[in-house]
């Protein structure tokens, strides 16, 4: 077994206690929420008897430890439980909604990287220049404009006034049928099905929410790129490289940028995980059937199974994400040994 594979396996094993902890904590925390889901789901006109029936059917009449064991037993069989709020099995909800959120978040991140990283690099190379000022404006605007505001503003200008954007009706306009589910990413599934019309339709739906989210995620990435590049450019090895007469391009991108990449990747990981959970507002504004709005709705009505399922799915996603980031580190900077951990 290669050292890298062993290291990956080791990391996965290390993730097990984390997941167990998440299972326990999410279970306890949801129970600590105020409110009685049985009463809520019985509806306004329910009497004592019908509330008791609901409580039994939700399994909430049993003592907490028994409920927990039942939950864990179901989890081990891959059963996340039934969401009362959406009326669907939680696993199905997550399978439908996680790809929607991932597609939006990833598109937004690619977009914001494509803008933020070049701007950050150029700003660092020419401090005080026009690009530097532009970078500063973008960063300030990105941080200070809340996403729901940018979202509504974009809808107002590009959909309502100019009529350039399609109706903000979610992932696909009602004229289209969603492509056959393979990955859950409409852009990819439409490609697999070879249906270009649906591909363009879902791309059009994706543009405005992705820009909204990109504006928001752009700020930390641009800032971090600029700062990391500044410190890399002022370090000794760059001076040496310059003194050795290497070309400006080689110095900037071959040495400085590669060294600056580590903090950028770290930030990227943080921004990704943060925005996946925090794009609730974007999802609401664009009627995007994503996981953030799902979790918030479930939380409001104390829908235990849905909240637990969401937390668990996010935990697993973060474990994977951290692993990927660590692996990327060792690719970028071979000095970071993997096998020693």
């Amino acid at each position, binding site marked *: 077994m290669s050292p890298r594979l062993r290291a990956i396996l080791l990391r996965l094993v290390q993730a097990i206690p984390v997941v167990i902890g998440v299972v326990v904590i999410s279970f306890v925390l949801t129970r600590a*929420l*105020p*409110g*009685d*889901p049985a*009463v*809520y*789901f*019985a*509806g*306004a*006109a*329910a*009497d004592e*008897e*019908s509330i008791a*029936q*609901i409580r039994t*059917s939700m399994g909430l009449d049993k003592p907490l430890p028994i409920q927990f064991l039942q939950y864990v037993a179901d989890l081990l069989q891959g059963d996340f439980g039934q969401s*009362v*709020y*959406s*009326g*669907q099995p939680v696993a199905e*909800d997550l399978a*439908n*909604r996680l790809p929607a959120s991932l597609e939006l978040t990833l598109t937004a991140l690619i977009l914001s990287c494509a803008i933020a990283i070049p701007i950050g690099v150029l700003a660092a190379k020419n401090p005080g220049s026009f690009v530097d000022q532009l970078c500063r404006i973008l960063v300030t605007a990105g941080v200070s404009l809340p996403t*729901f505001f940018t979202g*509504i503003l974009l*809808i*107002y200008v590009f*959909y*309502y006034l100019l*009529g350039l954007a399609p*109706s*903000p*009706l*979610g*992932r696909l306009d*009602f*004229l*289209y*049928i*969603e492509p056959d589910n393979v990955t859950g990413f409409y852009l990819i599934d439409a490609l697999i099905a070879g249906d270009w*019309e649906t591909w363009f339709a879902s791309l059009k739906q994706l543009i405005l929410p992705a820009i909204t989210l990109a504006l928001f995620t752009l700020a930390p990435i641009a800032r971090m790129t600029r700062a990391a590049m500044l410190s890399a450019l002022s370090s000794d090895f760059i001076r040496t490289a310059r003194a050795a007469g290497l070309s400006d391009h080689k110095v900037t991108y071959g040495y400085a940028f590669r060294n600056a990449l580590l903090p950028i990747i770290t930030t990227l990981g943080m921004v990704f995980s943060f925005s996946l959970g925090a794009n609730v507002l974007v*999802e*609401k*504004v*664009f*009627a995007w*059937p994503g996981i953030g*709005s*799902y979790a918030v*709705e479930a939380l*409001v*009505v*104390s829908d235990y199974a849905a909240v637990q399922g969401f937390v668990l799915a996010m935990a697993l996603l973060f474990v994977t994400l951290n692993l990927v980031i660590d692996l990327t580190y060792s690719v970028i900077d071979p000095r970071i040994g993997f096998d020693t951990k």
Partner: protein
Amino acid sequence: MSGGALGVASLPFLKVLPAQAASGDVIVAVTGQTINSLDLHRKGTNRASYQVAVNCYDRLVSFGTKEAPGGGLSYDYTKIEPELAESWSVSDDGLKLTFKIKPDATFWDGTKVTAADVKWSFDRAVSVGGFPSVQMKAGGLVKPEQFEAIDDETFVITLEKASKLTLPDLAVPVPIVINSKVAKAHATEKDPWATEYLHKTAAGSGAFKVLKWNPGEQLVYERNDNWVGGPLPAIKRVIVREVPNPSTRRALIEKGDVQLSFNIPNKDAKELAEKLDVYSTPIENCMHCVGLNNTFEPFQDSNVRKAVAYSIPYEEIFQTAAYGRGARLWGGPDTIDSIEWPRKSPYFTDLDKAKELMAQSGFADGFSVPFSISLGLADWMEPTALLIQENLEKIGISTEIEKIPGANWRTAALVEKKLPLHLENFGGWLNTPDYYFFWAYKKGHLFNSSNYMNPEIESLVDTTLHMPMDDPQYAPKIMRMFEIAFEDLPRIPLWQPALNVAANGAKDYEFWFHRQLDIRPLKGA
């Protein structure tokens, strides 16, 4: 794929729809609510899902149609019309209702609707427990033994007590007729009423079939061309899209990309009314009111209760919290002259009078009390509470606004009934004053959040609840009830809220007491 020549029923979704939408065959409606089940009888089914019961299933009877106050159409509580039943008769003692089912009524799968289906569906509604059983009970329908299928087309209901509420209760969304053959085929020992199957698949005889349901995104209805329950709908396909953000919904309806926006905020209703067709129908038998809890000592003093009623800035609240949508419920005549309900209370804003009443009360020095509102209903409760708080301060009652999370509200306000001063908004499906009083003024009943108890009201409600409305004793008793309610003031009426719907390219929208979208009467513009 050029579908213009094909019937819409056979059309795929792609490409051809915009042209079709323009020709008025398709209506797209947006709503902020999410549909979580196709089966109203299932536990945990939310209110928004009731529209499936309305549009996809038939009842034995339905209500008529009338002009709504404030424009548009409304259902007519006073007129019971046939839906699946061709005719019906009531025995002289009122205990036996016999229904003749339309002989040509068929389910979507082509099989005949029989009395056995009706019996199975009614048995289900009274047996599954939860909300359906509670609603059936309101009409005196409690157990399967009451329902009998005499032959294929004759169905008999036997009552223990004759009630004027039985027939209207058969027209609410709960007693739907389900295709029992299909349902039974999917029933299991653990799930005898096939709730798992019907949760995801509708099996009815109604005007519309469910073509497609993506939970959390959309529901697509398609017309059932063989419907016999009423006039065939003009629209062939209706797409209900869920759009959580009200600003987005507003942009969509203003642009005309959707034809109907259901249940829009009061503010949008007011502003859109200048450009589009906006229907703001006051919700029948429903009112927003201030609850004064009888367990809180100062509120046991009649002068304090009246002082509160005279201190409320009604008009300001109506304009700020309701944007003038709905109906005013204050400044009415001193004497009760009709059985109209909700009605204007005799109170109005008069701070001098309120101060005078406070001075005469046992609490001339004032007192302080928490003022509870629900976070789930904060859109109208918060501005209302702030305005009332300001005026109460002027008559010596200091309040602190306490916001209770939505999931806790029902327990605190309605079950434990422990909130001294709070806002409340009960609305009854069956539109008679006695029904409202039954829920909101009788001791221990759920919506009596004020712990109100008056022996005369108790007996008046009991006698009028099942009494026919044309009984000569009915009106005097009801008016007496109003008199006591306005004198005792456990609930101070504020206004009757409105259900707002904006249309841009759709017409003949009809308001229903269940506050869900009935797509059957809709027409393209």
